């Protein structure tokens, strides 16, 4: 198996807050190479924590995570994450941002430049290479971030609610963009979201998580070819089921949050 998360538990202990927070509990999942996996879960259930552990920013309290059989020990360019928040370096131009990671891959000056431009045009930002991030729209920033991630040619692409701050119209075109990039590159992608439509549009498989602590609640494999019509009856049925699952997670969460 390409990526394996085995019985992972993550507990946060903050010194001020006596009570430890269990963000992820005994969670296992595996991802075959080339799969587009969407992880759906209610807000605050531990999705980012899970991705952070796969990316290597956080260590599991219990359990282990293997990439191609090797345990993950820290962050690295083989698993690139598109973060929930903006992380383009504001003091660099878009092109400089993309070049930043390429510099550590031992490419020559020209190759770096060529690669950077290639990925810039892959996301349709050819004309904006010399712009600073703050001069771009929210959607363009997301694309630039995607280009920076893809340029490293990672084995695994992690995306943490990349479209949560994007307006509905840009979202549609970005979804199509992400899909076409996946089709071209056939990368393994783990895509975290709490938006059911995004998951239905992109995923080969959807994993629904419970409210905190995150555990696998349900798994749905979608065989329908992409791009998908989300208004087709099959998709609508699926959506209804997923809404129900998520609503249950939320209800569970409320129950947990207001004891007695």
């Amino acid at each position, binding site marked *: 198996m390409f990526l394996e998360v085995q019985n992972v538990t993550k507990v946060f202990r903050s010194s001020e807050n006596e009570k430890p927070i269990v963000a992820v509990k005994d969670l296992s999942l595996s991802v075959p190479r080339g799969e587009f996996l969407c992880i759906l879960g209610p807000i605050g259930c531990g999705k980012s924590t899970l991705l952070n552990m796969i*990316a*290597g*920013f956080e260590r599991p309290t219990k359990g282990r995570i293997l990439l191609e059989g090797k345990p993950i020990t*820290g*962050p*690295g*360019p083989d*698993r*690139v*994450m598109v*973060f929930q*928040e903006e*992380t383009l*370096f*504001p*003091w*660099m131009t878009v092109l400089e941002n993309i070049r*930043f*990671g390429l*510099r*550590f*891959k031992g490419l020559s000056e020209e190759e770096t430049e060529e690669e950077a431009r290639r990925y810039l045009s892959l996301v349709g930002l050819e004309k904006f290479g010399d712009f*600073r*991030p*703050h001069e771009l729209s929210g959607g363009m920033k997301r694309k630039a971030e995607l280009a*920076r991630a893809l340029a*490293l040619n990672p084995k695994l692409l992690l995306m943490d609610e990349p479209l949560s701050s994007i307006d509905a119209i840009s979202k549609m075109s970005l979804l199509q963009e992400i899909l076409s990039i996946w089709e071209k590159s056939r990368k393994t992608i783990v895509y975290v979201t709490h938006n059911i439509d995004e998951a239905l549009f992109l995923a080969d498989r959807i994993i629904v998580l419970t409210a905190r602590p995150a555990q696998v609640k349900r798994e749905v494999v979608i065989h329908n070819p992409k791009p998908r019509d989300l208004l087709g009856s099959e998709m609508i049925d699926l959506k209804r089921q997923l809404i129900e699952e998520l609503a249950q997670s939320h209800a569970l969460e409320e129950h947990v949050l207001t004891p007695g």
Partner: protein
Amino acid sequence: MEVNLSSFRRISLSRKTRLIASLLILFLAWEAIAVFVEVFRNVPFPTPLETFTRLVDLITGEPLYGIPIYKHLVDSVSRWILGFGLAVAVGIPLGILLGYSTAMWDLFMPIIYVIQTIPGPAWIAVALMLFGLGNAPAVFMIFIVVFHAVVITTASGARGISRRYVNAAKMLGADSATIFFKVFLPAATLPIVSGLRIGLGNGWRVMVAAEMIAGTASGLGYSIIESRWSLDFTSAFVCMLLVSAFGLLTQRVIFAKIERRIMRRVGLMEVS
């Protein structure tokens, strides 16, 4: 950009009127208080007009406590700049270090917090023992106050703001030297500049207090405290006016401009 700029100018016109109105309210209130005090307490209270007349006298050469008003101002500003400069030279590198390394933070931050709780003038005993009377103890007090403001703002800001950029850089495979110089430092620009701004204001205020107690024999603070004996309260008002005017000019006009330029350079927008 162009559109933004012109709309900004348009807004600023009506806001300028309001600014003038605001100053007018201030002077009217001042005048009212002056009249009130004169009538009910039978104490001559300098009015705005008297203060401005005195200002003109002083500017045109009448000495204040044996010294021209320019010299008082220049001496005050020099002490401020010296204390501020020294504090920044030590405080920024230390703040960056504490923001970068958790171990250093744990080791030094408690000390900085201890220093922070003690107001500038309360350092007078230490200042006198170290430096005796005169310029140096005043500069020392300014230094202490600016120092902790710069260190705390830089360190805590750099820690918070840089984390996500540093994480992104790690993920992109950057080595630690690149992370420090190309990512951490630029990301720390915002807190550094905030630290400078806070330090500048705190330093200016403590400068006035320091001159009152450190025996500097010149300066705006010194001239204000001397009015206790000379009863020349009008001159004290002139000095208060200068403290305020010069403080506003340096911090709200000059530094704000520099700050905006730096922020644009780094591509970061002001948060607050």
